[in-house]
């Protein structure tokens, strides 16, 4: 087990969005969480990453690292990141005045230090990150621009995937990573995710649409509705949802 969510309830601005959600994820698995607008998909991603604007009112999130079980809810967002939890944002945030290179290198080294890996010098990190950039077809100039500032929607999403491949998390939540991407950009992002996928990590794709799942094959598909997972199945479930919508489940 990598992640075990049990009876999770969470609210934002006094409105309860997650209403007793259960989800278990093991290393090596790819999960897709689908659901209509307002079902709580993004809320789940943010609660996993520790967004301070969401209040968890009940339930537990167990997270296993090196055979030790941790309560994710007791950890600050940066502690979660250092333990290998990653969220690819639906709307990546622009940070003018902070270069992508410095941002990524400090992040990499903070996580490496915490996990006991050697930190990288600027020279070593430069070679390392440039290699990773090839997998998402990003030009080197992006390293020297401010984080996401002035990036197109597609460039921002690719930057998220670049961060994921550089930081090498154990658990990656991709929140609507496919939204706003044209088909070419979608393929690039999917290639990056597929290269990242391994038997030691797990990927959770939160998405509206089936089309991302044509490129990244999930092992499990879950339907999130009304703040709960109401149905789980294999890849066929996604096709059925695409063809028939969500109404038939209820």
């Amino acid at each position, binding site marked *: 087990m990598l992640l075990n969510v049990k009876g999770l309830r969470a609210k934002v601005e006094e409105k309860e969005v997650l209403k007793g959600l259960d989800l278990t994820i093991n290393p090596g698995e790819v999960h897709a969480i689908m659901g209509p607008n307002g079902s709580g998909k993004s809320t789940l991603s943010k609660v996993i*990453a*520790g*967004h*301070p*604007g969401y209040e968890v009112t009940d339930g537990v999130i167990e997270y296993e690292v090196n055979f030790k079980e941790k309560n994710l809810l007791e950890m*600050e*967002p*940066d502690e*979660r*990141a*250092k333990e290998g939890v*990653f*969220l690819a*944002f639906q709307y*990546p*945030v*622009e*940070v*003018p*005045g*902070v270069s992508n290179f410095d*941002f990524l290198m*400090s*992040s990499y080294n*903070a*996580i490496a230090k*915490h996990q006991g890996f050697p930190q990288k010098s600027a020279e070593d990190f430069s070679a390392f990150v440039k290699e990773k950039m090839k997998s998402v077809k990003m030009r080197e100039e992006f390293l020297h621009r*401010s984080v996401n500032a002035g990036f197109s929607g597609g460039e921002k999403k690719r930057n998220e995937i670049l*961060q994921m491949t550089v*930081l090498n998390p154990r658990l990656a939540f991709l929140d609507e990573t496919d939204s706003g991407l044209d088909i070419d950009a979608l393929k690039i992002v999917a290639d990056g995710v597929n290269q990242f996928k391994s038997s030691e990590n797990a990927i959770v794709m939160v998405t509206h649409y089936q089309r991302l799942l044509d490129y990244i094959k999930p092992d499990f598909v879950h339907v999130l509705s009304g703040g709960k997972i109401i149905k789980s199945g294999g890849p066929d479930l996604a096709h059925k949802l695409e063809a028939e919508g969500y109404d038939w489940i209820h």
Partner: protein
Amino acid sequence: MKSILKVWNNYIDNTTNDLHTSDWKQWSQESVNRWSGLDFPLGEDWKYVDFKTIRDLDIHFPSKEIQNSFFEDDSQYVYQVNNFTNSMQTFDGKLPDGLKIEKEMDLLSRAENEPLDKREAGTNPFISVSQSFMGLGMCVEFSSEYKKKKPLKIVLNMGDFNEDNLFLNYNIHIKSYSDSNPHVLIEIHGVKFSGLANINLIGSVGENCTLSVVFKEKGGEESHFVVNHSYFIERNGFLNVFDLTGPSLWSRHNLDVDLEQEGAGVNLSGIYLNNNNNFIDHHTAIRHKKGHTESMEDYRGILNNKAKAVFNGKIIIEPKAAKSNSNQINKNLMLSSQAEVDTKPELQIYNDDVKAAHGATIGQLDDDQKFYLQSRGYSENDANQILARAFVFDLLEQQTQVVQDFINDEVSAALNQVRGNLG
């Protein structure tokens, strides 16, 4: 102001020298008459100033001179001004071609009919104070032979007196003539300074000359500074000023620029970093007197704890200043709910054919940016510090390498303190 009067009486009684003119004492007395009756400065330009820490200071001149301690630095010509009598020295005793430095008193001794500093004090009595203490200063002159030379660094060393409640006055006259294009780096070495210092920079920028002045105030918990910059720019002359204000207890910077002739321009920028319960006030006034003049102004402040800042930026475009262009911005980042800033951009435009824009912002750290950084492994403290640095980053990036090298350590130290306080 009464305590300054006491110091002045002491100065005028004890200053004996072999001046060829006796007029200076009379000029000095006339200047005193303009401020000696005031309790403290009044009026709109002073209404946000908190005088409580300054009005009861029982100030006096230093009782003894201090020893020179030189800052050797091959990248600059370093001039150190040590105390109230203005003993000055370079580290190698030589000056490069095109640079002349004299004591103000020496120049006064040759002055025939008028004082060196003819500024009108307007609403700022501290300009009159500096004129009363004429003689306590230096004159720096750059001719065209100075072109492409190393920067001149002037260190006002006021940190080693080991006396409380001092009064110091420094007048620095800077004249730059055509094509000299000098950089002047002025450092207030005053972390341990206790008392009030009145510092005056009177600069003239000649035709086709670019003068760059960087003013770095390193004050401490008992430091009170009044800094009066006054610049006069001639035809096609250009002035760059970068004003860095650090953690002095109390600091007021007045910065006046007169764009006297066509084609004159100025770029003023500054950063104020208030971490504690200190007070920093910038009052700037740019006068476009002739056509085709240009001014740009960008001041940024980061305030923490109970710090208080004031920014008042006045731009006056006079009737004869057609085709002038002016742009002013003041941005403030508040890191504490108890910090306070009063910002007031002010445009006075008397000609229709001009471009003028101004703006002011007061904001807090962006929660989404903070969470984004935290989600990538940055602690909350690190995220705060990085975002505070990002707030001033583009302004720092616009500066020349000389300026960046001169201020980077202080900016980083101040931002580190931001992190510490938030933690």
